[in-house]
């Protein structure tokens, strides 16, 4: 049987720097093929070559045993290869049905017609999405369903998912996996790019591991386990360092730094109360939409709590009410964002300038004028402490990898010498090596006596880091666990019910 889709000795270089180097990749009929690797390993570039988004600088794409060359993604789509991106490519101001039929070569559509057709089509896929709903109003999971439906509508025989589960809640993930099963039964082949190894192990038939733009290993999933994949990904075994159960002591609670009582904000944060102690890591686990980020942002002054009955926030027993983040920063409450590109770093500036902005705004700079020497010195100190990999501190942040960008954002926050740090998804979109380093840093902070709050939707991360675990559900902290005397099932049970 000929393979459905193949890349033969494909390479792609950007000005001499290889994103993918001499890789051969085969997608068989009706298989689910997981593609894993660290950030920058070349997974996305590889699949983009298959989907006609970028053209290979060497090598060929073969479809059904014949060489093909797609000039644009829409040509690839016509040949039956669809790519579903991490950031959805839907038009938010159009309805679901309009998005579904957007790419059809028809100048006009009758709205009623496409709503009826869309309804039938979505039902045939067993997707519970209203075809007349605006895409912008849908949740991440439903958006993804629409993307998938669009791919199926174009009779895609191969669908490439780029990090499909990154933004999904556990329930949505479950739905996604059953959908993959159904697609497979219809004979659709699937390439699945993921950071989450458990998912790859769970749903794929075969796994390919890439590292630094090169092919490392392809084998049937049955022959893999977590350990083996991680070893192939990083070239060394990181697993114990990362998420393995460690024999560690739970840190005792220090002084009560933050105490939140009956905090409310709109319908995202509803009358919630919790405390954070010095010298301890408090983990917050909750599904997306549970109000955990919003509660943290209210504490840090990024968002304003309700004017009436908004509740009380006390820092060291003193009631505080921040309308903007600046006074919170000056009081030592620092929020490290979950979306570094949107509200983390300054992309036109260098590493040194980014870190120095933090120092200035936090009042941690000696002279009242900007001294280049002091900037260099502070930046040098922090890039070394956090092991930021860059040629020098004059490199622009936008040119760094995700992990190093995150480290710069963290450095920009820590240079402000906080008493309470809130890490919101500290390792999202960060490669495996950097995850370990960021975790080490968070542990160090707590050991030094800083109060640390870590928000994460990745259970192993919460379990590995936290001394106490708070569960956030529907805008409220609903339960508290001891960091060592609990397990994944217990936490998940508390978070979803």
């Amino acid at each position, binding site marked *: 049987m000929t393979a459905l889709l193949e890349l033969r000795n494909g390479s792609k270089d*950007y000005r001499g720097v290889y994103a993918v180097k001499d890789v051969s990749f085969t997608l068989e009929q009706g298989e689910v093929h997981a593609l894993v690797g660290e950030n920058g390993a070349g997974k996305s570039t590889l699949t983009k070559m298959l989907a006609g988004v970028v*053209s290979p600088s060497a090598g060929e794409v073969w479809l059904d045993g014949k060489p093909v060359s797609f000039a644009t*993604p829409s040509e690839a789509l016509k040949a039956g290869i669809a790519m579903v991106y991490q950031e959805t490519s839907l038009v938010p101001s159009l309805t679901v049905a309009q998005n579904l039929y957007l790419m059809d070569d028809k100048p006009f559509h009758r709205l009623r017609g496409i709503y009826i057709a869309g309804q039938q089509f979505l039902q045939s896929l067993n997707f519970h999405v209203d075809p007349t709903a605006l895409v912008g109003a849908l949740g991440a999971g439903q958006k993804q369903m629409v993307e998938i439906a669009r791919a199926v509508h174009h009779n895609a025989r191969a669908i490439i998912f780029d990090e499909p589960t990154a933004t999904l809640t556990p329930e949505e993930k479950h739905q996604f996996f059953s959908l993959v099963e159904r697609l497979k039964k219809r004979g659709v082949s699937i390439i699945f790019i993921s950071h989450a190894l458990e998912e790859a192990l769970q749903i794929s038939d075969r796994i390919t591991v890439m590292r630094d733009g090169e092919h490392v290993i392809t084998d049937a999933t049955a022959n893999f386990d977590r350990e083996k994949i991680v070893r192939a990904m990083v070239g060394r075994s990181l697993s114990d360092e990362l998420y393995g159960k460690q024999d560690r002591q739970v840190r005792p609670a220090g002084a009560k730094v933050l105490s939140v009582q009956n905090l409310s904000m709109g319908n995202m944060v509803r009358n919630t109360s919790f405390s954070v102690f010095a010298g301890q890591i408090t983990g917050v686990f909750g599904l997306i939409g549970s109000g955990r980020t919003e509660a943290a942002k209210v504490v840090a002054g*990024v968002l304003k709590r309700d004017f009436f009955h908004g509740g009380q926030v006390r820092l060291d027993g003193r009631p505080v009410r921040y309308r903007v983040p*600046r006074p*919170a920063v000056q009081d030592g409450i620092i929020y490290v*964002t979950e979306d570094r590109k949107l509200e983390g770093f*300054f992309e036109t*500036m260098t590493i040194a300038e980014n870190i120095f902005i933090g120092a200035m705004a936090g009042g941690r700079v000696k002279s009242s004028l900007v001294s280049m020497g002091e900037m260099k010195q502070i930046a040098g100190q922090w890039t070394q402490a956090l092991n930021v990999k860059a040629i020098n501190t004059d490199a622009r942040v936008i040119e760094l990898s995700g992990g190093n960008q995150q480290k710069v954002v963290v450095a920009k926050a820590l240079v402000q010498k906080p008493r309470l740090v809130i890490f919101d998804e500290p390792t999202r979109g960060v490669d495996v090596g950097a995850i370990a380093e960021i975790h080490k840093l968070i542990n160090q902070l707590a050991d030094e006596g800083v109060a640390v709050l870590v928000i994460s939707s990745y259970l192993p991360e919460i379990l590995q880091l936290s001394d106490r675990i708070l569960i956030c559900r529907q805008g409220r902290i609903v339960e508290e666990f001891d960091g060592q005397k609990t397990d994944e099932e217990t936490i998940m049970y508390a978070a979803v019910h």
Partner: protein
Amino acid sequence: MRVFGRLSQEQIVFGLAVLLCLGFALALPGFLTAQNILNLVRSVSILGILGVAMGLVVIGRGIDLSLVALMAISVAWTLQLATNGMPMGLALALGLAFSLAVGLLNGFLVAYVEIPAIFATLAMGIAVYGFGRYVMFSLDVVYLPQDAEAFRWLGQGRLLGVPTPICMFALVSFLAFLFLRYTHQGRYLRTVGDNLAAARISGVPARPVILMQYMIAATIGFVGGCVTAASVASMNTRVANSTMIYDVILVVVLGGIGLSGGKGGIRNVIVGTLLIGVLLNGMTIMDIQYTVQNVIKGVILLTAIVIDTMLNPRDEQTAQQGDI
């Protein structure tokens, strides 16, 4: 395209200016004399001063369309007060205070009321012009009083043989450069333009910085207005209705200060100003019609932007593959 290497728009524009200079120098006798070069820079120095004001606002991801109107009205009011017998110093102080008040209002509307800068300042420019013409003075041209010798020097004097407008342009540029590079507020200004949300979360006083940027622009505008008034011994308030504001934006954008904020610096304003200066001067010597000059200016701006987009694509992949 790779033969060119990675050129910035600033370098391209500077190259264009040098090329034009060479071309004019070869083709036009009298272009490359010291006198003409001084004239050339002098003729654009006011545009340059206003460019610095606009540049600072644009770096902070704003735009100030009331700049020229405010300049005209505040300086005309100053001259009117002086003509009515007020001491020049006091008149200048009042004019500056009026400028600052309007700048503050602009900043307040943008930072606290959160109106898009383009609409807030557009409306403010119209309001200020109308207010000035209705309340502050009645004629549309206000003349400099005869006895204001010191003030006149600002536009017509010389400092070490260099006309004062050029010195003022140099001074304003230098101060703005120092401000952006060496003060905390200057650094904050850039963070606000680069990423407002990140600036806020980092503890940058974002809204006061926005207030400040419009007040600085108003101040520099007032200085530019004084130089203008001193050069021609009057202030013609009809410039508020001319295309001057677009020329100021042209200088800023041409020099390579991105309208998306955070990018570029004072050097870009100077380079943009020089290109426009060379162009206008050469065309004037060649006696090209005003309307044709506008066509040429427009084409130059488009060319600079197109070349910049080709050489420095927003995203490498889209540039190589074409937009999807």
